[in-house]
């Protein structure tokens, strides 16, 4: 009744090809953006920004990048943390070594550095496929872990191995308070989400999907696997690299290589799978799920007033976390985004399903 496209006629190609062809969707997304840009900064508490919204936005961006590689192009990567690390350390070096480097430029250069490394480690994907490739991408993970720990030049010969940035600002506006950090992340995430959405709707996006569905058949109909796979690696690692810069600069402030360990890679892959492979909204849903779940699980015994030791809690969190992941995979292997679209489909027929 409320959600249907009856009477919404398309009279131009532009109208037919817009991202949200249904009026109600456009209203919903406009409302969402309004809440995110206006209501949140006015209402959110500092803890809410620091512990939930900022990590959510940054991890959603990283998941978005990974989703392009795994969900759209079908190349499983377990080395996402590595590309985040490359972005973060590259941007750090640009900031430290070049005086007066603006944050945005450093961020984009960090992304570019991640692109280069991503393409380099993407080259084996032309020959190695499936699970073999997944394990092979771990090489990137362990190599960068080692490189940023052992090679002093990357960390500007910091003795503790941890590096930090301070006095971030964009066009003279300082990015220090939680609200300004949140808004900065939000803008970056919105821009990249829009670009990613449009890329996946374009010719190159279709090529990625063809490669994912069956690479031999795609090659037969004239899609160049080399070009398609390497662009997917490039775009994906660029976005992941930018997310790495944000994670290090905006969220952590001071970090060491452990911040981008293999656990981070797994966490991002979980987001993509639980959110939904091959969907932009899936990256956000998955990130929200994976950020909120540990927070809720940590607080739960506290809310219920059950006295148990923190060690037991952390083990129980591990257990519940693992069990929930398996549960979600069984209930909806296509992810939360699929649940969402099923819900929308039902809404269109409601309240007369026949």
């Amino acid at each position, binding site marked *: 009744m409320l959600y249907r496209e009856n009477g919404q006629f398309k009279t131009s190609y532009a109208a037919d090809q817009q991202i949200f062809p249904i009026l109600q969707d456009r209203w919903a997304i406009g409302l969402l953006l309004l809440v995110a840009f206006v209501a949140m900064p006015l209402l959110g508490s500092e803890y809410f920004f620091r512990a939930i919204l900022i990590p959510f936005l940054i991890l959603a961006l990283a998941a978005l990048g990974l989703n392009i590689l795994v969900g759209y192009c079908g190349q499983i990567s377990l080395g996402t943390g590595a590309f985040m690390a490359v972005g973060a350390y590259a941007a750090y070096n640009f900031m430290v070594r070049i005086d007066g480097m603006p944050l945005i430029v450093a961020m984009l250069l960090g992304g570019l550095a991640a692109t280069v490394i991503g393409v380099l480690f993407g080259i084996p994907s032309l020959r190695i496929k499936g699970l*073999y490739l*997944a*394990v092979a991408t*771990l090489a990137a993970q362990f190599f960068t872990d080692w490189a940023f720990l052992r090679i002093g030049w990357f960390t500007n010969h910091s003795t503790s191995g941890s590096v930090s940035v301070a006095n971030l600002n964009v066009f003279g506006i300082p990015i220090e308070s939680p609200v300004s950090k949140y808004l900065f992340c939000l803008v970056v995430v919105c821009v990249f989400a829009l670009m990613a959405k449009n890329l996946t709707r374009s010719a190159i996006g279709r090529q990625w999907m063809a490669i994912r569905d069956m690479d031999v058949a795609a090659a037969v109909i004239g899609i160049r696997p080399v070009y398609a796979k390497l662009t997917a690696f490039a775009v994906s690692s660029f976005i992941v690299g930018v997310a790495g810069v944000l994670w290090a600069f905006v969220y952590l402030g001071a970090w060491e290589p452990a911040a981008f360990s293999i656990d981070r890679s797994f966490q991002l*892959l979980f987001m993509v799978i639980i959110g939904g492979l091959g969907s932009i909204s899936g990256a956000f849903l998955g990130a929200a799920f994976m950020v909120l779940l540990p927070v809720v699980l940590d607080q739960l015994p506290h809310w219920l007033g059950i006295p148990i030791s923190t060690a037991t809690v952390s083990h129980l969190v591990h257990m519940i*976390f693992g069990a929930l992941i398996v549960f979600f995979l069984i209930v909806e292997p296509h992810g939360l985004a699929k649940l969402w679209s099923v819900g929308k489909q039902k809404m269109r027929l409601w309240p007369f399903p026949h």
Partner: protein
Amino acid sequence: MGFFLETLFGGLMAGMLYSLVALGFVLIYKASGVFNFAQGAMVLFAALAMARFAEWFPKWFGFESLLLANLLAFIAAMAMMVVLAWAIERLCLSKLVNQEGITLLMATLGIAYFLDGFGQTLFGSDIYSINVGMPKDPAFILEGMFEGGVMVSKEDLVAAVIAALLVIVLALFFQKTKTGRALRAVADDHQAAQSIGIPLNTIWVIVWSVAGFAALIAGIIWGSKLGVQFTLSLVALKALPVVILGGLTSVPGAIIGGLIIGVGEKLSEIYIGPMLGGGIEIWFAYVLALGFLLVRPQGLFGEKIIDRV
């Protein structure tokens, strides 16, 4: 030369231990097409069970014999692994039949998280020791050929022998028994096996139990070497390059791959490591495997991947 041989032997024996963990991966992948990331967690779980039961049983039943305690603990730990295999099949895998490889991979990662938490809740999270009477002192061989001989750790030697025995037992089990034949049939072709009356679910439980057995042996050996603690579950990450190097579907591949990785790791650490600043073991194994894969994308002994449109 003596030093080189020492490194070589050390590498070969470390490689045998990697193969033990890699075997678990290969067994499960062959039979059910699941890339089991939980193998490391299973090693930790089995080792924890073994260590704690060996500690608890003498207290509960009031006996002193170490041998008896270890024996009972081994049986109890093995029983737990069988129950675990059954539960994983019943609650998880049977519901995910026909899903894509990556979904199954993620499910086993979920299982790994669960097992890590479950094992440590059940058995505690301190460092425990397993004492099965492994010799700790080093031995010298080939003393006639080199001055001072070549030093090998007796512990590693025993471990390598046990690993070799396990491989022989598994090979016999697969080749000579009726169940083994059924397992190979399922590995060859699920549908054909099912159509001639081999119960898939039972076979999967058996395979996961066998992988649990391999995990238990690996856990005991690694555990008595390094102590039983959380880091034990990370040996899986050491075994992954072994698996892809040897080929996901090949048992001999796991052994040969393990030896190559073991030797490559030790030699690189000694001869290339100092140039790069040390600690290169972990990524060198992966890069080595990557190098082999570029030449043979299906691993050394894996089945040839044939793409059909």
